């Protein structure tokens, strides 16, 4: 019988582990490289190039597009792009908050229903998102345009100027965003509510917490991971949303997504579009980072995976 030295067997283990890693990681890494790293690098490169005659990027490298993005043009500084950024942030914030306010009780309500009804109710929440976004946006147009009952009602209540209708407007964009992203908040919140440990809630009540405080100290922390996951699923796509502001916002409702898209089509300025995309990426990362911090603080230092 040949005795293998511990050194040799360890070496063999290392080799097999390396081979195993190579097999499993390579396809994924390849995928990420082709479809994430390369395009991002390309985008980054384009952003630092100069705008050519037909909107295509050309040498030399410059910071022109970032200056334009910041609002510096031929006629001096204009706040247009800054407004677009702020509007994007504001719309994201407002629609996410509204989505949370609507989705939280809905998700809770579904978990209190009988077990056989729950999948059906969840289906009802999700079904609208099976229809194309564009079609749903057109639906809202028909509901909110001047002369429709909803618009007339809003006009008669003095909420909007006469004959203006609810669409196109920033309000219509907010409404469209809330409607569009509601399922993405309901589902993770439902998952959180479903595995809620009611013993903790009872323990809080037992330890002198009023119903409101029991909610805040024992229910809310348990739903926080779902809430943060939902916020990521809602806020990030909402921030970069193109279709809804395009269709429901009119000229006044433009968001960053529209600004970027325009540079690759209508007004044709690829470097500016690339710079806008990078700005969105940075803003998203800052948002994610902030959420992680908030999650950690509210979650008592626990890692909340988002």
């Amino acid at each position, binding site marked *: 019988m040949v005795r293998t030295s511990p050194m040799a067997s360890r070496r063999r283990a290392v080799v097999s582990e390396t081979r195993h890693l190579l097999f499993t990681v390579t396809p994924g890494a390849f995928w990420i490289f082709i479809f994430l790293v390369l395009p991002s690098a390309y985008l980054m490169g384009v952003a630092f190039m100069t705008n050519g005659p037909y909107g295509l990027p050309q040498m030399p490298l410059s910071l022109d597009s970032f200056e334009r993005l910041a609002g510096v043009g031929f006629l001096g500084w204009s706040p247009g792009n800054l407004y677009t950024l702020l509007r994007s942030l504001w719309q994201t914030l407002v629609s996410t908050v509204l989505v949370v306010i609507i989705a939280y009780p809905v998700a809770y309500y579904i978990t209190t229903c009988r077990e056989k009804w729950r999948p059906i109710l969840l289906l009802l929440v999700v079904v609208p998102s099976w229809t194309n976004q564009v079609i749903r946006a057109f639906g809202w147009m028909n509901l909110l345009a001047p002369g429709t009952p909803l618009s007339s009602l809003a006009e008669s209540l003095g909420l909007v100027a006469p004959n203006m209708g609810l669409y196109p407007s920033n309000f219509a964009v907010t409404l469209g965003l809330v409607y569009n992203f509601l399922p993405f908040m309901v589902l993770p919140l439902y998952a959180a509510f479903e595995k809620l440990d009611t013993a903790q809630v009872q*323990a809080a009540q*037992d330890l*002198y917490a009023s119903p409101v405080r029991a909610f805040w100290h024992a229910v809310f922390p348990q739903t*926080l991971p779902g809430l943060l996951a939902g916020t990521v699923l809602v806020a990030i796509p909402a921030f970069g949303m193109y279709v809804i502001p395009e269709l429901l916002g009119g000229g006044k409702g433009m968001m960053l997504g529209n600004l970027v898209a325009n540079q690759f089509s209508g007004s044709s300025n690829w470097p500016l579009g690339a710079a806008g995309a990078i700005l969105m990426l940075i803003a998203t990362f800052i948002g994610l980072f902030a959420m992680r911090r908030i999650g950690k603080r509210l979650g*008592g230092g626990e890692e909340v995976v988002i």
Partner: protein
Amino acid sequence: MSETMTAEIADHPDARPAANERDRANHKASSIEMQGLQKRFGRDTVALDGVDLNIQAGEFFTLLGPSGCGKTTLLRILAGLEEPDAGSLVVGGKDITETPPHQRSVNTVFQSYALFPHLSVRENLAFGLKMRGMPAAERHSKVDEIADFIKLGDLVDRHVDQLSGGQRQRIALARALICEPDVLLLDEPLSALDAGLRSQLQVELLRVQKRLGMTFVFVTHDQQEAMVMSDRIAVLNGGTIQQVGAPSEVYEHPINAFVAHFMGHDNLFAISAAEDDWVDTELGRLRLDPDEQRDSQDGWLLIRPETLELDGEIPEGYNRLEGTVAERLYRGSRIEYRLTVNGRSLMAVASNLGQRMHNIGDRVTISVCPEDLVRVAA
């Protein structure tokens, strides 16, 4: 609490002995009176079917019964987490039937511990005090005291998920004790622990209760645990109380067959006929104490295995049976025999005093004192 805790620390040789007597009297314990408590779940499930029960101040009282007997429901009604359909609940002279849980001076140690996983041990311990509006500095020192008290002082800044089962159990106990409630409720707090830790914590829990003089209401399905810990036990079945009494009373004189079975008795024999001082059973005719009478003719005869003597001298008036040894279980401190008498199986237990052991197949003479035989209602 600070002073009562010193009392517990005084149990250890290195602690200050002074505060002991002064503080034990400090805590006010509350009595509990329950009357006609009823609770249904849905249409058909009767959890409690009219429970009347008085628990004295400072008593270690145990609700014992199989799962579904209503013991946990009763505890939850005491905590205010469940509302009774009918009946009243008075704690410390105050009717709290309608009082919501957060306004009751009653705290619970939950079976699952129900610690808050997003909070540190310190925050868990301080939770009740914080909800009552105690200032942070005061909370801090209270938590330090109770953490020392339960010997987990070095763990207060950890996270709950870094604790072992036994540590969690202690934190759950301390989280309830720190509030100094009138009544402490314990819902099978030891059931998730392994046997060794369990018996260790049983002793600790008992010691804490005696030191603090607090009223403890303890729920368990383990009759051994109930007997070890309790001043009195209530045995429940099907939403009603079967028997209330001291452990020895419930064990030695179970009121009916259910209680007898639940207290771990195997030797129950149907009575076919009875007179003043004898009964006929499957084992044969046995003499018993004339005081040991029941109104009804039928029922059961209970023979406790430890009252049987094998092949011993038989004093005048003792019952005598002949049997064979069918099984022998050597348990170290004692030896259990399963005997066959008249084709019926009879358990006997002998303390291991070094006497000769009986072998399987041996014919033995069994004797038992008439006063040790107990008649049990059906």
